[in-house]
């Protein structure tokens, strides 16, 4: 198994983990963290593809590498915008879950029925 395959599998597992967090965390900031994990997993899949394309004396195919750099900067910009939305939601509503019909604050229980 090459290092490209190993880290490619690692990227696939990160996408799965991030997706799980995205579904199972009610808090918007936690969803954002999980979504960033999905993003880095996708980038890592790209990195594995770039590594496999190593040729002509380069350590990897430079085209996917450049795309990942572009992707990282855009991901940061999107995260900054999303964080500002979450903070604004917290200021306006005093909470950060995305449930359209919130339970009364006192009724919040550790186990919410699905």
């Amino acid at each position, binding site marked *: *198994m*090459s*290092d490209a*395959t*190993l*880290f*490619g599998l*690692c*990227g*696939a*597992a*990160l*996408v*799965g983990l991030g*997706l*799980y967090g995205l*579904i*199972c965390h009610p*808090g*918007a900031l*936690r969803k954002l963290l999980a979504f960033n*994990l999905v993003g*880095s997993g996708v*980038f890592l899949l790209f990195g*594995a593809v*770039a*590594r496999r*394309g*190593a*040729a*002509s004396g*380069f350590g*990897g195919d*430079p*085209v996917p*590498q*450049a*795309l*990942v*750099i*572009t992707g*990282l*900067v*855009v991901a*940061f*910009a*999107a*995260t*900054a915008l999303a*964080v*500002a939305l*979450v*903070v604004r939601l*917290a200021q306006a509503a005093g*909470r950060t879950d995305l449930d359209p019909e919130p339970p009364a604050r006192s009724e*919040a229980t*550790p*186990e*919410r029925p*699905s």
Partner: protein
Amino acid sequence: MSLPAPVDLGLAALVLGLAGWVITTSATYRAAEGFVAYGLVLALVWVRLGSVDVALTEAALGSGLTGLLLLRAAARLPADDPAETTRPGPGVRVVAAVLCTAVAGALAAVVLLLPEPAPSLAPAVAANLSATGVGNPVTGVLLAFRAVDTLGESIVLVLALVGLWSLAPDDAWGGRPGFLRGPAAASPLRFLAQVLPPFGILVGIHLLWIGADHPGGKFQGATVLAAMWVLVLVAGLRQPPRVTSRPMRGLAVFGSLVFVGIGTAGAWLAGAFLAYPEGLAKPLILSIETALMLSVAVILGLLLAGPPEPDDAAGVRS
């Protein structure tokens, strides 16, 4: 089938372990801390994948600045937020786990079934790199072969800033960005913010300059510059500029304007939008990179500084 090197196995285990911690830990603040460590280990993975350019970006931007953003946000959220304690029932979690495992399994199958020999654009880049005058293939791709992606990205950054500012309440417009305000900084932090920036600015410029031939470039340099600015803001040595400040807005769009200007000139001088006249490629690429680094640094700093807040909320610092 040969086994991967032990260091690779260790890094993969660390990355997955930290990602698991980010997902499973109960407090948002601890999850954000875990994300910073995760980003740093991921940067090492990128080094192992032979991509030092991406490793630098991941360490500085993916781990450092994103981590600061998330930690600041986690600290600002209400402590009694019901989203901190509620969790979906076990049924939902089991179904989600099964579905996410299926997605990860499908992606893993794709990784294992990638075509042999691997398709690669590396020979095409190597054959044409000398025409651009730069020696770093990633810089060549970013500024010459796929310059249109980089142009689009520099415009996306401006749009993100516009979007961020438009989240301000009406009475806050014209105020100063408020995310980085906090209680008065301790004296060691103020000292650090006085000593470090000169060195950080040198490192940023160095990263830009060597980016033509070695790993580095404008994004990495801009991230270091933005980090220095943010350090000064967090320490309270300077106030962020008002969002109505025209010089700052001008600086934020300067890089994109230079890029569009040179790209449009290429339509006449070199026969295509974003093409460079022969022999002038390297000076033009360096001009674009320098202008973009300034703008990207300003925009990254402003994105971290958040939307404007009313002036009366600024009483913490005077």
